[in-house]
């Protein structure tokens, strides 16, 4: 993630707090989890593929560090509003790990795995989210709920998880966060492998 995108994600994650404070109740989002709202832009942007020469790229540790203060503020306000501490903590742990893994995947890809990571990220994160949203609209007119297969696929999606977290929906405990973590972990692993494969292929003998 570049420094510029980190600034954008940080500004978007702080925006709900500022809107509530400056605009009063008219700009508040009733019933939303503030910690979930903080995570949403970070999960969307943390894994952005890097350019070939990326002098402004942040290490994944710095990206994750930028999330923590607004996430802590959101978590504190959620707890004050009556949310269970364990549930808020679980949401923050899963969300923070998703951000870290997404940023790590982009970093591990390096120059050699950059293209593969970009394609995988595009398909697995924004592409499939758009597809899921479109299929849910087409597949369930009037009922408001997607078909079972789509619902199962959506359970693995980091952006769907972030959306559910922002809406303070039940996340089914650890199992709810495990599947998107697994998917994002595989993305990071694939990026790492893609970086190494050409190097091995290029060895003499």
């Amino acid at each position, binding site marked *: 993630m570049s420094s510029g995108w*980190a600034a954008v994600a940080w500004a978007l994650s702080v925006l709900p707090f500022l809107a509530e*404070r400056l605009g009063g109740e008219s700009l508040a989002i009733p*019933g939303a989890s503030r910690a979930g709202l903080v995570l949403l832009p970070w999960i969307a942007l943390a894994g952005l593929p890097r350019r070939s020469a990326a002098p402004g790229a942040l*290490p994944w540790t*710095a990206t994750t560090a930028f999330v*923590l203060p607004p996430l802590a503020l959101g978590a504190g306000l959620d707890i004050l509003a*009556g949310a269970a501490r364990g549930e808020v903590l679980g949401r923050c742990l899963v969300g923070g790990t998703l951000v870290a893994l997404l940023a790590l995947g982009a970093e591990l890809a390096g120059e050699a795995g950059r293209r593969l990571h970009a394609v995988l990220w595009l398909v697995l994160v924004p592409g499939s989210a758009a597809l899921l949203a479109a299929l849910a609209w087409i597949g369930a007119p009037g009922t408001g709920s997607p078909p079972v297969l789509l619902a199962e696929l959506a359970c693995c999606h980091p952006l769907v998880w972030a959306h559910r977290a922002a*809406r*303070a*929906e039940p996340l089914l405990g650890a199992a709810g966060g495990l599947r998107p973590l697994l998917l994002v972990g595989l993305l990071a692993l694939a990026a790492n492998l893609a970086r190494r494969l050409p190097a091995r292929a290029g060895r003499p003998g």
Partner: protein
Amino acid sequence: MSGPSAARALAALVLLATRPAAEENRAWPLALSLRGPLEEVVLDCGEEGRTRIELVLLPGETLELVVPVPVRPPGGAAGLARLVPPAVELRGGGAAVVQGWTLLSPAEDWASLPPGLRARPRPPVPGSALRAGAAELALVALAFVLGWGGRRKGVLGPAAGLGAGAAVLALTLARAPERAVVTLLEGDLGSGAWMAVRGARDTLEGVAGALERRPAGGAIEFRVRVEGAAVRTAARAPGAELFAVRPLADPERGAAGPFGLGVLDASWRRGADGRWRAEDGEPPAWLQSGLPAGVEALLGRRGPLEAAVWLRVAGPGAADRGEESD
């Protein structure tokens, strides 16, 4: 469609769109049969929220329980039969069987109240909406500036993020959460019906009977704690106002004050001519609203302002009863 018909249809649409939302109960009782071992049962209603039951049931132990569920049946109680029961999630390895929807007990059934009484405006909820404080936001901004400066300097950036995160969390949790509850006792002497309204922001403890959420719609989480024979229920909807509404049975049985509701610290009486008695002064505007015209009324307050119980009674002889507290 002809011009006048189209105009009438448009006017009807405008009326529908601008009409205030009717009161809507969001606490529908569901009967469950539980068998241990169980530590937690969650009834998931999707976007409408959930009911979380915390209990300790030993292996083989059984419990019949009726809990509120935050569904929105179309058409109220009549629409319950068409609803799909909520999904059940368990922790502890036991079993939970949904027996079905039940009716509110007569002591809790707000449908038995006269529509005019039910439709009276709800009291303003004390306290302000929860929002980030200036100090907390300043600390978050400072952490960003520090992190930005140290973003490529090894552990400095992550250390600033971790430290600031811990400080922000501690600062936020050090605030005392506002748990102010407003209570309003409503009476209609014409029909003899009474009801009690309790309102709070974000979280309302001790929910019994019907529950309204403002703004309408949105998710509600019920937390039901079973401790021995005691069952405690709280409703939570961050950012929303919650009102528990239930009929008040026979308030005359109380001890002192008008209608046996206690001695009033302040009272305001209105005659059938619509004029408030000069010696009482002017009552709060919100308390006056919703009173029917052309009948006597008694408004009152018991207790200090920050923890007051308010009284709003209308009907023949209401003003005379108010004199009991003078």
